[in-house]
């Protein structure tokens, strides 16, 4: 009897064993590197963004899997408009980016391609890649933000990175064009203890926004706009915080995602006296 039980147990152990257990996973580790940046095609300046899913999305697709390939997990640019991934398997990739600029992949209503500025590269070793795009807006601080009673006051200037006519020329063929797309809808002042301040890393106690209806921002383009951190929410004295301004237009990228991405200013460090 004992023998039978022992035998059965031994047998079932063997039954559940797979030979793969004993094999070494000798697949080559992902060690290729891609270093990229996204710049304004006119000025060559980096497109400043947020680090997170509201910033510039980098989507890589390894093509050797055939026509039914799924893209790799998305990752996002750093806030200075550059990106880097040092753990990539060797292979041929298509790289697409989406952010607060004219989409580099444009198709009409029926999916017929109009433009495709994605890059297809063999990645081996370290590869550098540069995307030249047309940002919607350019956002800058006019001068250094001021602080009084723990409230930050910043002066911001927003200009267009691409004229309305140029925008229309590029976007209209994609169908369902609406002249409201180019309206600036809001200006944000993000405040945070973190130097990677932006939408994701904002502190909700202090970050503030101004919203605009319809085309009412049109007259304010290029002008100085004053925006303050939330009234009544005092930032503790002696602390260092980082601020950034951002603005966006009424157009989502990629089309249909509903995500309207902001163009950002450089971050600034502010010391609360």
């Amino acid at each position, binding site marked *: 009897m004992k023998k039978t039980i022992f035998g059965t147990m031994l047998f079932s152990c063997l039954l559940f064993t797979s030979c793969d257990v004993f094999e070494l996973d000798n697949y080559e580790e992902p060690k290729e590197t891609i270093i990229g940046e996204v710049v304004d095609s006119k000025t060559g300046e980096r497109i400043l963004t947020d680090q997170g899913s509201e910033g510039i999305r980098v989507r890589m697709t390894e093509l050797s899997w055939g*026509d039914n390939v799924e893209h790799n997990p998305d990752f996002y640019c750093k806030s200075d408009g550059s990106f880097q991934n040092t753990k990539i398997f060797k292979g041929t990739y298509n790289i697409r980016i989406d952010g607060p600029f004219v989409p580099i992949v444009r198709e009409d209503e029926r999916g017929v391609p109009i433009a495709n500025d994605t890059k297809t590269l063999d990645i081996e070793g370290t590869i550098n890649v540069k995307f030249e795009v047309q940002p919607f807006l350019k956002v800058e601080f006019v001068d250094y933000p001021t602080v009084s009673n723990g409230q930050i006051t910043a002066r911001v200037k927003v200009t267009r990175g691409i004229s309305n006519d140029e925008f229309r020329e590029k976007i209209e063929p994609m169908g369902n064009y609406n002249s409201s797309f180019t309206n600036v809808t809001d200006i944000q002042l993000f405040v945070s203890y973190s130097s990677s301040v932006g939408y994701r890393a904002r502190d*909700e*106690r202090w970050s503030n926004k101004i919203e605009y209806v319809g085309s009412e921002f049109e007259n304010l383009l290029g002008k100085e706009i004053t925006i303050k951190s*939330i009234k*009544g929410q005092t930032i503790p004295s002696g602390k260092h915080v980082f601020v950034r301004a951002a603005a966006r237009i009424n157009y989502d990228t990629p089309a249909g995602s*509903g995500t309207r991405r902001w163009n950002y200013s450089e971050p600034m460090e502010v010391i609360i006296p």
Partner: protein
Amino acid sequence: MKKILAYIALAFISVSCVDLSIPPKNIVTSEDLLSNESGIDIYMARMYSNMPFEDFKYLAQWGFNFNGWLNSFGIEGTGEALDRDGICTTFTNEDTPYWSMAFTLIRDANFLIENLPAYKGSYPEPMYNHYLGEAYYVRATVFYAMARRFGGVPLVTKVINYPANQDDLEIPRSSEKDTWDQVAADYDKAIELMLPSSPKSGYSNKYVALAFKSEAMLYAGSVAKYNETVTGRLTGTGQKTGVRVIGFAPNEWQEASKKYFTEAYKAAKEVINSNLYSLYKKKWKANDPEAQYQNMIDMFSDISSPENIYVKQYTYPTLTHGFDAYNSPFIFRSPLSSGMCPTLDFLEQFDGFNHYADGTLKVTTGATNTQGDYILYDSPMDLFKNAEPRLRAYVIFPGDQFKGKEIEIRAGVYTGSTPIKPFFNDYSYASADNTYQKLDSYTKKPKTLYLSPREGSSQERVEADGFSMNAAGENGPFYDNGESCLTGLYLRKWLNPDPAAEIGEGKSDQPFILMRYGEVLLNMAEAAVELSLAGETSIDGSNLLDEATEAVNEIRERAGAKLLTNTLSSTNVGRDVVRKERRKELAFEQKTKWDLRRWRVQHYEGRNGLWGEEKNKDMYSNNTRYRFRGLYPFFSTKANKYFFDAHYQWISLKTFEYTIVDYYFAIPGNEVSKSKVIDQQPNR
């Protein structure tokens, strides 16, 4: 040697040339199941146990696991209720996506549709038709459940045999429009075939199918219409097939939306005109709030209610759930409690309270909650004395009775002098983290505010002005215990009110009403107003707006709410009256999360409509995120009276997030990558 030869010879003798064609006795065949009534019962039981019904065995965050663990609802960022845990999050996906199990059930339905005709002679014709109708009803239910999650889905309308060549096995997603048309067609087939009343308990019938059809078509019509209100129009074509898998084409949405609303209206009207159902009013009495309140409590457990159209029944001890075990007040904790705490924002929708100019509940004598002094009450229930009876039937107020006990809810005790000024000078979203335990009156000397971190021996004692009492109520709120009363309010709806009923996991057997006449009235009213907005005045001879008004008033009368005195207008304001009524009446019934989706009012740009009516979203939102508030009762020892503070969720503060892509769930990634034809959502 001879022996061996003999054996071989013997072996040859036992070979027979007759094929072994007798079906094995140990396998259940189609014949066994489909040729007789009890076999069909088994077949149906299998299908029904896999139906995507959202009841006491469904948690939105987890999807269909068909178990009742931690079952709570209304906690999906709908504003109805809050919970301490991670399950209290917006409805942006389900951990177990409703995909592969859906196709298993569709296969069962398709198999019945294809194979039952062979046994037609075994049944009287009406029964045969009814069984066939059940199969279409099941398929409609599954396609509907999928369409409202994913948009266009693969329309598998026949049994696919395996093995077969690849092209026959793979079915791409259809367009969203074709999917909704299929839902309508399957419901229609079911309505045509099924009996007017269920042949057995648990079976469906014609009116069940009609009622659900009205709900489904309301969803379809809303999606077609309100996708247009979303930035950049919410639609797109699949990468692999070019099919419009989400949304509607610019030239077809208008017509489609009108068609679906018409279908919704007609289906609901047919249920209403049948006169088989009516609102539950067994104990209801005009002008008697107490009777109206009791009536609305009873209606959820009275299985003979004429309002019930479709009910999922439970029986102790074989088929049970644990709703009471997770959602009862803290004093009944067993093994958990406080899973659904209604919000102040929810309460503010109801009649019977005083408000500030911005519509929020008045708790001070001033013009806003930072001005004036707190209003004092002898007992906390005094604030609620004129509350709409329906609200009282849904929510337990501080000091209310439940299961024969007083439900003591007290945030703290204040020993400072009266009149009492508001605790904070800022109650905005940005300062939601500023909570009572950070107040100087609590942390510094002289201490005038007493709060309790936990229950039992962790309660702070207050000895002042002749009072010797615990700081917090028996049910909390306790600021370090997320299992106490999070918002100052508790849920009453669905909980077993019987003091003798034992609370525990697997001890509850209240039925869950999946479809009731009240919803059919509201479906009809909403479809009517939408049709009126689309330029119609009448579909079947009666005036759409008159009918909508009458339906809303029927609901309001039973609820003890104020009646509409004017006919609803053909405007968004008129539509919002119906929407708000729906949010109130169908709260905590697993329905609201779908209503918010189809109205497209959960993302920031559309969030003004979250409460069914226009309400400034900036009062509770910050871009993609939003939060809800509680109503916290305090006791003043100097005055020997109670006062209330309205504050963002004090304990386990939840911040919700919702973006436009969430209106369509992602197709499970493995399904997309293993198939040549299944498209991911184009906007992901």
